């Protein structure tokens, strides 16, 4: 493996009374699209701002391309940032905004104009070079902010909630565009977001943060299918959780006594004991009015309590006699799918033990 472009080593950041970042240690590889994901207040923005140089770590080191930059001022770091508010300078034209970072560092005027125009072309804003920011839409302003950062040819591009101010359609489009842009320019991107869809669809690897700590770092599919703990399982996507206690283990199968599902056996590679949580994703749950034919599935019986129709999918909630509430997502595969069942119907919900995750509580 090559040298990591960024090494975060035992980084702590303490604000009065709060541990904003608690002993973060991880590496980011060159050309990686890396996401810091977590709920608001989890420390992800603080970590990004420490990389950018707007906050100083209380302890620990941040190494960019082999150089410890913990005490290098923001304007001398080889990183650039796209701010949440875009922070496009309102009194400068688009092209002046893009050229600003070159101008203040003494790049000759003719080089500034060629590089700035090039950067604007790259974000498809070449025709708006002489506009003022107040004549641009939110999406266009964001592109200016992107071009302005990329024109500096940083080693790492930092993006702080870049899509949160855009409407849903534009956000989806920009997600794809950012991913393409990253491949195109070959710069490491670090994005901070609280939106799991954004992180899952764009990033190569995601660090899930929770109360200042990094809970898990993994590729999107690993994070979704094999979350380390309850928080990650619950935060990434939707999940049904069942509490239980381990009663025994044989080979790679663990027996668990759960309150709602009775005694079940699920495959699990590691040893487990004590109280645990069983997790299953709602789209992996099957639902039918007839009992499942296969004996190898696990599940229960209940009444459809709620039904939310989303066009392509339907979300259902099934309530069991033991008080469990199980979420199910079904594809509306045919036009008749939704007619087959109705709220109040008694149904069987079941899933394969392989799709069940065992999480330590």
């Amino acid at each position: 493996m090559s040298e990591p472009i960024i090494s975060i080593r035992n980084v702590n950041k303490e604000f009065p009374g709060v541990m904003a970042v608690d002993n973060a240690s991880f590496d980011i590889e060159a050309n990686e699209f890396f996401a810091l994901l977590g709920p608001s207040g989890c420390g992800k923005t603080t970590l990004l701002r420490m990389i950018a140089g707007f906050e100083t770590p209380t302890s620990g080191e941040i190494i960019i391309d082999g150089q410890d930059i913990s005490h290098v001022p923001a304007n001398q770091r080889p990183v650039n940032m796209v701010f949440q508010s875009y922070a496009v300078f309102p009194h400068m034209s688009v092209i002046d905004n893009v050229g600003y970072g070159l101008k203040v560092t003494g790049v000759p005027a003719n080089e500034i104009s060629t590089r700035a125009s090039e950067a604007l072309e790259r974000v498809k804003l070449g025709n708006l070079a002489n506009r003022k920011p107040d004549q641009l839409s939110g999406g266009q302003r964001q592109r200016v902010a992107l071009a302005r950062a990329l024109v500096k040819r940083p080693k790492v591009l930092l993006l702080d909630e870049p899509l949160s101010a855009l409407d849903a359609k534009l956000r989806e489009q920009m997600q794809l565009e950012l991913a393409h842009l990253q491949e195109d320019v070959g710069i490491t991107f670090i994005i901070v977001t609280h939106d799991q869809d954004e992180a899952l669809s764009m990033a190569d690897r995601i660090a899930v943060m929770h109360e200042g700590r990094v809970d898990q770092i993994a590729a999107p599919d690993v994070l979704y299918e094999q979350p380390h703990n309850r928080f990650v399982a619950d935060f990434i996507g939707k999940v049904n959780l069942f509490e239980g206690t381990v009663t025994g283990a044989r080979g790679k199968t663990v027996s668990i006594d759960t309150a709602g599902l009775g005694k079940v056996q699920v495959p699990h590679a590691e040893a487990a004991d004590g109280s645990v949580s069983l997790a299953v994703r709602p789209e992996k749950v099957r639902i039918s009015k007839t009992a499942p034919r296969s004996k190898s599935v696990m599940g229960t019986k209940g009444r459809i309590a709620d039904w939310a129709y989303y066009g392509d999918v339907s979300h259902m909630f099934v309530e069991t006699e033991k008080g469990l509430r199980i979420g199910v997502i079904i594809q509306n595969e045919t036009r008749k799918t939704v007619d087959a069942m109705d709220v109040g119907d008694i149904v069987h919900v079941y899933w394969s033990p392989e799709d069940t995750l065992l999480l330590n509580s």
Partner: protein
Amino acid sequence: MLEMFKRAPQGPLDYSRRLWLRFFAAAIFVLLYLPIFTLVIFSFNDSKRNVVWRGFTTKYYEKAWNNDSLIEAFVNSITIAVASTIVSTILGAMIAILLWRFRFPFKAAYEGFMALPIVIPEICMGVAMLAFFSRVTGYPTGWMWPFNLSAITAAHIAFTFPFVAIVIRARMAGFNRELEEASKDLGANEWQTFWNVIFPYMRPGVVAGALLAFTLSLDDFVITFFTSGPDTLTFPVKVYSMVRFSVTPEVNAASTILVIITVVLTLIAMRLQAPDKTEVA
């Protein structure tokens, strides 16, 4: 069909269509500006007593122009206003930045003390200035012009800079700190960031503050009265002494000129600020 020609019914927030409010607004304007109009009209009155209208003349403008001590007072006023505006704008801007940017012990107390000249009765400030300049430093009489105006200028700076600081401070409250961070992120140092990013945002506040300081200085009477000597009369003080003898159209003429200067300056300042307003939106 007639419905078409009827006006839409008055909405709850259509204040400008309420008759009594329109009347009220008109009354305010009349009461505010009628005295000034009277002043201007009677500056053309061909009467020494200036009580009843006796015909049109411009001779009092000529007379005012030839009144050397009035012109001298006018030049003094402008000189003091320009000098004190420059100093208090710089001082006020620096204080505004200090209060906006930094946290330090006793900041609230500092902010309160800084604004004291705004709330202290002017007469107290005038007496204090008189005592200070005559007893402590020695009155700058007998100095060469314009240095003999330095006491008045200092007094004006002392009471105008808090206004400038407050205006600029209010403007900076709306500044997006991410702009400053973006500038540094792109490689600019503190100095470049200030002049390229912070100052352009601050400018309308600076212009407004400077204008406020200028007009405050130009028409101040009380503090100036206590700090001026026999050879350092300012325009308001001179007008006051003229009025004590008789209210001639000459006084009106001189005052009209002052009104015109103020209005023109205000228009220029509004013009200067206009493009910035669209940028903010």
